């Protein structure tokens, strides 16, 4: 194993060990927050694969997050599924929706792509409201504690919930780390840098973008399914525009195109919004200011700047 690979594994593995250790020492409030952050960071990791690595800016990823959440939630609620098959249903819903959207949206590029993804996500959100009979619309529905027993483990218990969130995050982190260093991931980065050149090197760029979107959407859907299961609630707000803007914001802040960026961004933004919602109902102002400041002055984000100035080996 090369020196560089050892450093990378040490850094990322170290983070996971740290998060595991925090399980035992954090006070209840932060413990719950961190569980949420880890699941949302997994969503951000999914988003980063399409945005940070492939260079495609989607404004509709809430569609995938909600597909997973409702795929899981609806099968529990209406079909009496137990958690494990329900999670699988959420995952498959994610695959289907992301494949469908990819086939349509990838016929466009740039600004049109952003608008198309935004529109389809909006249609998804409105559909959840329209079919309120099954989805309970804006109100959403609670997933009972009894329905959240996975193989005898009560997922509503804070410790189990934290560890489940950590497991999801570890899987997503590991997956993204492997993907971006593998040949497929390298081609995605090259497509971001100069797509025409990649085509003329003999790569099917359309197939690569399709694959990237499906992987990205599926990871996002898995995060949505787990979020609904761990926190016992599925609601239309998770399909709204806000939840498409959030991963963009988290990834921009943490560092697009880095593996750790999504986690750093989610962590910071979560606490930033948490603090400001204590001060005012207009806490999204912080999100707005952050977006403007980041695009103007720090498009590389935290981990991106770190990589640019100090640690060039950071994946």
């Amino acid at each position: 194993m090369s020196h560089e690979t050892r450093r990378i594994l040490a850094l990322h593995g170290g983070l996971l060990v740290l998060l595991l250790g925090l399980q035992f020492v954090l006070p209840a409030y932060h413990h719950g927050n961190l569980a949420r952050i880890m699941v949302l960071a997994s969503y951000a990791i999914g988003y980063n694969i399409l945005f940070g690595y492939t260079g495609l800016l989607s404004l509709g990823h809430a569609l995938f997050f909600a597909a997973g959440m409702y795929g899981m939630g609806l099968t529990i609620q209406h079909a009496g599924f137990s958690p494990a098959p329900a999670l699988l249903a959420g995952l498959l819903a994610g695959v289907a929706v992301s494949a469908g959207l990819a086939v349509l949206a990838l016929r466009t590029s740039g600004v049109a792509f952003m608008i198309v993804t935004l529109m389809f996500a909006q249609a998804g959100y409105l559909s959840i409201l329209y079919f309120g009979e099954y989805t309970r619309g804006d109100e959403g529905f609670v997933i009972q504690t009894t329905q959240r027993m996975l193989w005898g483990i009560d997922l509503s218990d804070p410790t189990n919930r934290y560890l489940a969130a950590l497991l999801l995050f570890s899987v997503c982190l590991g997956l993204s780390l492997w993907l971006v260093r593998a040949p497929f991931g390298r081609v995605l980065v090259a497509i971001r840098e100069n797509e025409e050149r990649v085509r003329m090197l003999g790569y099917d760029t359309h197939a690569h973008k399709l694959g990237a979107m499906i992987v990205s959407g599926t990871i996002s859907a898995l995060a949505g399914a787990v979020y609904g299961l761990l926190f016992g609630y599925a609601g239309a707000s998770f399909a709204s525009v806000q939840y498409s803007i959030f991963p963009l914001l988290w990834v921009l802040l943490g560092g697009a195109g880095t593996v750790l960026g999504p986690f750093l961004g989610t962590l910071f933004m979560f606490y930033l919004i948490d603090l400001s919602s204590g001060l005012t109902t207009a806490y999204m102002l912080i999100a707005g200011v952050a977006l403007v400041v980041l695009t103007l002055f720090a498009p590389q984000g935290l981990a991106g700047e770190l990589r640019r100035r100090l640690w060039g080996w950071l994946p």
Partner: protein
Amino acid sequence: MELGPYILLASLEGAVTAAVLALTAVGLALVFGVMRVVNIAHGEFFMLGAVIAWWVAQTVGGHPAIGFAAALVIAPLAVGAIAAAADMTILKRLDYDPERTIVATIGLLYILQQLTLMTYGPEARPVEAPFNQRIALPWIEHGDTGWQVIWPWGLGTTSYKLAVIGAAGVVLAGVWLMMARSRLGLVMRATQADRDMALAFGIPVERVYALVFGIGAALAALAAVLIVPIQQAHYLMGADPLLLSFIVVIIGGLGSLPGTVLAAVLIGLSDGIISVFFSPTLAKIIATLLVALVLVFRPEGLFGTRRT
């Protein structure tokens, strides 16, 4: 009311929607046409127009017509100034890069919206119309004694609504005149056609951009002032106009002003009629899917020219 008169009523209401929508959408189209920038905060400029109109009417007091007239002048100017400032501080620094601009305008959307929430509050507040006479409308029916003119109860409009349609028409004609005939319009069209050449000819492109961005926002604000006596001013009222303007501009063909106006009329009228038959949520779903599919399969819209 019978179906016939009902559709006439829906069409009239739709015409008001179309008038306001046309103004708002033309603002968005102008910005995209000249600057190649998609402004996601456009709906918030609309909302600011309504909120400022309320504030002006409150402050000026007296007869509603005075307050309204003042708002009609002040709100678009104020919003235009805010927009121009945003362009000079933010968009210019991003060099109008399409993707970064969209992200920045999303941020701008939240800033404007949330600041309004903090100052104006979450309530919806009305503004009184300057004049508001009810006008009953006739309908022709085939009765026992041949064709008769009747006055169905409920079929009518107000003088204000007719005035809105008229005012929008006048402003749109003014915009067209400016673009086609005035020196400013010529400068704008030159900048749109070839930015670098315009620079080489000494046209102050950055100032033109700030002006265009300001005019686009002012048009939206003006539309909002016109509609606010009918609809109330609320900090979240920008979302629907944004979506509808997008639909109009994309279907009408990005960068084509006549196409935009035509699409606005089409969509404004059909929105009114469709809401008679379908639930508003379903109508919105159809509308959003329509925009997406048009972009996917016919990106030049219905009236734009295909770029090779």
